[in-house]
């Protein structure tokens, strides 16, 4: 029998039972749509995390004091102190693969302007820090080398600080003097708005002052520094730059070859790998939930096709009596289930894209629909149609014509 005829037969038979055909399709539609939506949400959050981490500077290298391998994050002023300003100078002088390096002193302090006060993070850094973190100045200017050297009482403020001290984000605070821990400091610049990072931190709630100003005037000790932020010349050289820094610091800290480092060097790529893994796990989890619903849709196809074979036994008998061969019946039923899963797959793709866009619009969640997720779910649904359509189709084809004819 011609394949075209079989398509005609299958199509007519589907059209004769529109409601039944639609109900079988529904399982596939929902399955495919949820696979696409879940993958889109997963991929969206993945890319969002990657973008936030990249905004911290992809080439950056962090050096923390102490041999803290478990957390990877400095415990702050209380943890052991091993890094000095001389280490920063040595890295700057000796490491070829490092293009920027800045000491980082960090503390929280009460900031006062007139009758307003605000508690915020004070960062003591050099201008290199701004370059590594891609921070830019919206108004005014950054501090000069001379201001850094002389521990000048100047600072750059983030927009959240401006809002809380001056009552208005758009207020121009340049030239105003604020008090940080009772020390009067003049604002010379306002940082460009950064917004929240992935972890929910407000990146505009910050005051940046010259390193020496913070070190000499605000920290309890002037010997040690909290951490060092550096950046490799390119993303590919970051690993080599880490080695370079490690070797240099071991030498400077006079660490015996058998002893562990008294500092920890971490790179942005390590952090992004960790978060990439987390979001990948999440995507896989979501996709497998969606995959299960697709599988259930497939079993639905098999169920209804089986019922349909029983229900249409008499019809199959008539077809066989007038000359349908076993393989004609098999092919007809296979085409029916393939058409159902194919058409269902297309509707599912449309519904999945619409659902993703709705999540993006109303949930404020980033979604990214990839071609591969669309293809994957479509192929999967077609395969399910083939797989679960085969058994009922074979059952129909194996019927004995007289028994089928007698069946009422």
């Amino acid at each position, binding site marked *: 029998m011609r394949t075209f005829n079989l398509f005609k037969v299958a199509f007519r038979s589907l059209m004769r039972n529109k409601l039944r055909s639609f109900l079988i399709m529904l399982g596939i539609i929902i399955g495919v749509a949820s696979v696409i939506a879940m993958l889109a949400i997963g991929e969206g959050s993945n890319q969002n995390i990657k973008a936030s981490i990249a905004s911290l500077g992809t080439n950056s290298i962090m050096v923390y004091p102490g041999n803290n391998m478990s957390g990877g994050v400095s415990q702050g002023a209380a943890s052991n102190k091993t890094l000095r300003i001389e280490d920063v100078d040595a890295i700057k002088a000796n490491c070829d693969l490092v293009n920027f390096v800045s000491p980082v002193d960090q503390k929280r302090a009460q900031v006062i302007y007139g009758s307003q006060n605000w508690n915020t993070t004070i960062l003591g850094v050099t201008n290199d820090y701004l370059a590594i973190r891609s921070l830019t100045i919206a108004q005014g200017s950054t501090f000069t080398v001379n201001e850094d050297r002389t521990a000048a009482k100047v600072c750059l403020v983030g927009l959240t600080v401006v809002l809380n001290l001056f009552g208005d984000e758009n207020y121009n605070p340049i030239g105003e003097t604020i008090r940080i821990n009772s020390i009067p400091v003049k604002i010379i610049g306002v940082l460009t708005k950064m917004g929240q990072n992935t972890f929910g931190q407000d990146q505009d709630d910050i005051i940046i002052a010259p390193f020496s100003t913070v070190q000499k005037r605000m920290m309890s000790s002037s010997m040690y520094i909290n951490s060092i932020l550096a950046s490799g010349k390119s993303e590919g050289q970051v690993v080599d730059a880490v080695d370079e820094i490690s070797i240099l610091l071991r030498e400077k800290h006079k660490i015996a070859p058998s002893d562990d480092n008294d500092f920890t060097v971490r790179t942005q790529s390590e952090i992004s790998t960790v978060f990439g893994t987390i979001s990948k796990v999440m995507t896989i989890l979501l996709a497998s939930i969606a995959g299960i619903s697709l599988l259930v849709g497939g079993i639905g196809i098999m169920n209804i096709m089986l019922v349909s074979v029983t229900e249409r036994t008499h019809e199959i008998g008539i077809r066989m009596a007038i*000359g349908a061969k076993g393989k004609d019946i098999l092919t007809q039923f296979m085409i029916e289930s393939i058409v159902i899963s194919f058409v269902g797959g297309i509707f599912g793709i449309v519904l999945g894209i619409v659902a993703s866009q709705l999540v993006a619009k109303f949930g404020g969640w980033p979604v990214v629909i990839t071609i591969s997720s669309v293809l994957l779910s479509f192929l999967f649904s077609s395969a399910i149609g083939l797989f679960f359509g085969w058994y009922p189709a074979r059952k129909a084809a194996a019927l004995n014509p007289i028994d089928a004819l007698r069946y009422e």
Partner: protein
Amino acid sequence: MKNPENLITVKNLVKTYKTGTTEVPALSDVSLTIDKGEFLAIMGASGSGKSTFMNILGCLDNPTAGTYTMEGIDVLGRSRDELAELRNRKLGFVFQSFNILPRTSALENVELPLLYNNTISPKDYGDKALDALKSVGLGDRVNAMPNELSGGQQQRVAIARSLVNDPIVIMADEPTGNLDSRTSYEIMQIFQKLNDAGITIVMVTHEPDIAQFAKTNIVFKDGKIIANEAVKERKNATEELKLIAQLSEEKSTT
């Protein structure tokens, strides 16, 4: 010595059904020759084996033993697919319960056997199906659905379907069993017309007056043919229908 007029020859057919451990004989040693152009009526009480015999003749069932040749070709021992093709090309089926597909128009029902026939081009489907419907007097109901047709009309759709592949034999299993006598006569009129045109007809019936329209009657009892004789006073359906029409006219005038 093969007689060219012999269309179907069966010899020593035996069919036994197994129900658990007991064997139920349905046919025991049946032999018959059906000539080309024959109009055969098979009679017998229910359980006499006539339907089993019909199923075997219709290539829907295989006998337990015996031989069956059609146009000199051995039918038994063929595969399911070969038998399906044989049914499609050589045989036409008409059933008691019409067996036309529901929610499918008359034309599409008649087209059905064409879809399973590779030798006919798809562009001829419509014409062939329409011709078949016209030949049974349903040229004006081509797009009607089965539920819009009377029993007699549904049976005529089934006859048109059996004709569409130009068969050599029409197998009719109690074709008038579900119809009133007037409609039955109309069906017989069609059968006699087809038979006159050279199509062999094998018909199972348990109504003696319907059997009178055939050329030959055979009677089954307990799986054996107990009578095989030519019909002596063969009825002509056209004449009978005229008679009925006259009678009802007389009734209405008086």
